[in-house]
């Protein structure tokens, strides 16, 4: 009984590391093999995963910059349908986030995948009309996600270094998922 407890403590320490993304004292396979046969450690893993997730969320929410961010978010949401200021007496409200935000994401991905792109080629590349493509490009500029350069007569737009890295990170995750799906098949 005592031995069993000591044995599980060894795995308990590994579970702590695993959830925290730290290096474990044993190969992953050893931990997973143990988890397959030990219900108590499986529960321990689940509990620690949940607890850590709540701790992380709580810590994040308590940061002053997060509070400020959410204040701004609320203000943005409330003005998205243009309730304030002079209103048009007729017509339909356009949800800017839905109508343009998503295409901004597509342009972001296109630039991440293909690198610098000529400004006049953007509408064709992301299959949008010229006006919408302009708004979408402006959106990314406003969020400081893109830069522009002029080479001779052509203006090129491309992701900032930080955004390019973020794109590769996201793509890396997706490739990982595809590989897993293929392996499962």
């Amino acid at each position, binding site marked *: 009984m005592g031995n069993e407890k000591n044995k599980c403590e060894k795995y308990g320490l590994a579970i702590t590391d695993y959830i925290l993304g730290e290096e474990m004292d044993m190969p992953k396979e050893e931990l997973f093999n143990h988890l397959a046969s030990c219900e108590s450690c499986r529960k321990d893993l689940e*509990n620690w995963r949940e*607890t850590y997730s709540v701790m992380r969320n*709580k810590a994040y929410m308590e940061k002053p910059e997060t509070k400020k961010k*959410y204040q701004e978010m*609320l203000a943005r949401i409330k003005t998205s349908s243009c309730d304030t200021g002079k209103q048009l007496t007729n017509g339909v409200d356009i949800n800017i986030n839905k109508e343009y935000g*998503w295409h901004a*994401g*597509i342009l972001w991905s296109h630039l991440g995948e293909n690198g610098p792109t000529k400004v006049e080629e953007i509408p064709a590349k992301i*299959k949008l009309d010229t006006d919408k493509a302009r708004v979408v490009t402006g959106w990314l500029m406003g969020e400081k996600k893109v830069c522009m350069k002029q080479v001779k007569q052509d203006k090129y737009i491309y992701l900032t270094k930080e955004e390019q890295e973020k794109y590769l990170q996201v793509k890396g995750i*997706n490739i990982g998922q595809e590989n897993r799906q293929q392996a499962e098949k």
Partner: protein
Amino acid sequence: MPDSRTDEQLVEAFYGGDNTPFDTIFYRYIEEVRAVMRGKSWFKDDDQYIDELVGQAFDVTWQCLKDRKFKSQGQGSFRRWLFGLCQLECYKQDGNRANLPKTTSTLFPASFADIPVRAKKETDPDDESMRSEQINEQLKEVLSKLTPEEQELMRMVADKIKYKDIINHRFFIGHSVVSIKQKIYNIRQRFTGR
């Protein structure tokens, strides 16, 4: 002073033309919504993305309430509706991020906003939110009984500070990585009441 009105009363006031109850709803749920979306998303370690998800969820909530899509079915029905909406939004945005559909119509089908108030079931995101609240309470209790040194350790763990950096903190000078690991392990045993 916190607004003591129920969610359904706040929605009723919102439908009456007053936008301020939305602020109360927003701040009442922001932390739980974030916890649930973080728990559901494939990209849980990307705080900025999770914030975007949360913003998107509340944006859709705002639009749905503006269009009077929520129909109250008694106390608690708004909460279930909101978490259902958050779950859908999370799956949709995660899917979008992975697959990048080409048109907005695939993203925002016309029927999307008409989310019915679902009957409660075992995998209800509302239950997950309750569970996260329960863990939160347990955490508060355990953390309040820890020494200042242990509290600082858990704060650093929650801030994703690595063991090798923790041992350089003034509280833990002279500690090894192994002893930090053991301390965290011992503390987390208290969470599970062992």
